[in-house]
């Protein structure tokens, strides 16, 4: 039986004179595409004429799944979107639902949310730095980055029980309070971290090869960056002073003292410098949040929405009933729609939640920063070399789990 494989016309092998263009497929199994991303590159020699991203290889219908799950069950789905920044995803989703429910979150829970999110931001940037340097050929940086990230994952594990999928933030507060000795462990990490950042600088910033590979590569102007919807470090690398933590503050970010790093060149190098400085700023915020931790409740006073403590369930009938109702039937959320943006490690992470008044959402949509940032790749890579594409993808800091959802 003869097999019939339809080769798309652009990939058919034809005799062409040497000076014509050639289309090649980069990915979806290419190590530098950070997952399963395929790029269709039209090349003229080694020059990129056109780069077209082809996504969807990791599409798992998460937004559809939300509509079949109760609100509190949706939290575990968010972990699996941007799996390098799961606490950020948790936060965006629970805050959107809390906005619909009009819940008041206790002070301690807010502070812990900031603390954990900034630790997660550092962890996410560390993976970016390690893989970005690895793509460009600097292999040792990867090990230094993952050494530090391991410490953060241990902290997240201590707080939530999960390393990659913590689901630590719940609608109305946190899953549980921090374990004893957590502050001491965070301080231990904090003490060594600034030295580690200096190590990264020693390895990369003064490295001539790294500079040559990143400077003046993948340039995008401020106007184009806004037009393409770039956000986060990619936007700030083009000189736009925009951070959602400052522009539309949430969980009390307006009371923290930190700088928003800006670079003006708009190239891979600028985005690198922005993220390197952001890690230090997050380190500063973590220190401030640690200083603010005061004993108090970590769950909102909303018995119909927030699961009761185990102790209360053993003593009070109503706590047991509420627990049963929340788990078995969920809770009704007032009809309406909200869009809640946060500054995730990669940019603006917006969650659109539409409720029809029942215990399951009518529609949940995630505006993933990676999705939008990747859509600007064709614009950035015009006229670049093939090797530059690898540097540009690295500088965008994409996670395919969030792009394909």
């Amino acid at each position, binding site marked *: 039986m003869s097999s019939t494989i339809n080769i798309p016309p652009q990939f058919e092998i034809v005799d062409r004179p040497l000076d014509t263009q050639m289309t090649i497929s980069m990915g979806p199994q290419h190590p530098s595409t950070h997952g399963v991303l395929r790029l269709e590159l039209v090349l003229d020699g080694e020059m990129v004429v056109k780069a077209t991203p082809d996504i*969807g290889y990791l*599409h798992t219908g998460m*937004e559809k799944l939300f509509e079949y799950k109760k609100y509190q069950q949706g939290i575990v789905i968010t972990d699996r979107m941007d799996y390098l920044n799961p606490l950020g995803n948790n936060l965006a989703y629970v805050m959107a639902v809390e*906005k619909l429910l009009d819940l008041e979150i206790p002070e301690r829970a807010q502070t812990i949310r900031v603390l954990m999110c900034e630790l997660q931001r550092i962890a996410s940037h560390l993976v970016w730095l390690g893989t970005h340097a690895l793509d460009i050929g600097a292999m040792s940086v990867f090990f230094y980055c993952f050494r530090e990230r391991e410490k953060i994952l241990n902290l997240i594990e201590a707080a939530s029980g999960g390393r990659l999928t913590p689901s630590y933030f719940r609608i109305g507060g946190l899953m549980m309070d921090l374990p004893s000795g957590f502050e001491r462990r965070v301080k231990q990490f904090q003490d060594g971290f600034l030295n580690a950042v200096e190590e990264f600088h020693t390895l990369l910033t003064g490295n001539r090869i790294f500079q040559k590979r990143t400077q003046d590569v993948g340039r995008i102007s401020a106007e184009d960056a806004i*037009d393409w919807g770039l956000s986060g470090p990619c936007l700030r690398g083009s000189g736009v002073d925009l951070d959602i933590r400052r522009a539309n503050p949430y969980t009390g970010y307006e009371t923290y003292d930190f700088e928003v790093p800006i670079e003006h060149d708009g190239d891979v190098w600028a985005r690198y410098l922005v993220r390197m400085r952001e890690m230090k700023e997050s380190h500063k915020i973590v220190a401030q949040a640690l200083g603010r931790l005061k004993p108090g409740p970590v769950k909102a006073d909303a018995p119909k929405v927030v699961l009761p403590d185990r102790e209360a369930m053993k003593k009070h009938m109503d706590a047991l009933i509420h627990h049963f109702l929340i788990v078995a039937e969920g809770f009704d959320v007032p009809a309406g*729609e*909200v869009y809640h943006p946060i500054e995730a490690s990669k940019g603006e992470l917006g969650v659109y939640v539409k409720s029809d008044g029942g215990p399951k959402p009518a529609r949940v*949509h995630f505006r993933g920063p990676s999705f939008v940032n990747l859509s*600007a790749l064709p614009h950035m890579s015009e006229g670049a070399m093939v090797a530059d594409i690898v540097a540009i993808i690295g500088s965008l800091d994409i996670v395919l789990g969030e792009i394909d959802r």
Partner: protein
Amino acid sequence: MTTGAGDQGNSQGISEKISKEGSGKTLENTLPGPAATGSTQLSTPSLLLTALQRQHPDWVTGIIEAFGETTAIVPKLHIVDVCSALKTAPDAKFDFLADLCGADRGVEEEPRFEVNYHLFSTTKHHRLRLKVVLDENSVHVPTVTGVWRTANWHERETFDLFGIVFDGHPDLRRILLPEDWQGHALRKDFPLRGYEPYSLK
């Protein structure tokens, strides 16, 4: 928000821009400033919308304030006009399309579909949602890729998952699902588990 002469000047700015953008429509009288409406509870985006509505009554058919967010219902014929007016007006400056997503209200509902545009201003830091509602038998809406290039992938995703056709889109193909996929996965009548196992054709 600020009050007084500054707003007056700005609102003249918005009307000039709107008259320029508004497909040949000319402006006869300048609007009073947003502050002149007398209400201090309304947010800046809703004041901008009220001014826009007074200018072009058929551009905005409804303004909803809920959960601290402002939503404007816009007829699909005018969505491009409204977007470009809001993008360029000096006191609106919605230069950033944060998100664009579709929603299915339910198989029985009429109109069944909606497209939500989440606008953001990188300088004023305010947000606004525009909503276009669509009948099931006419799921066409003009593209806004001419206003913000970032709309390109968002519209492709909405087309892929809801089957909403964006007229004038430069490259309207499926983006997440394979090209030969049947149906639109996020419609309410599309089952979670699918009709049958998927195979490449």
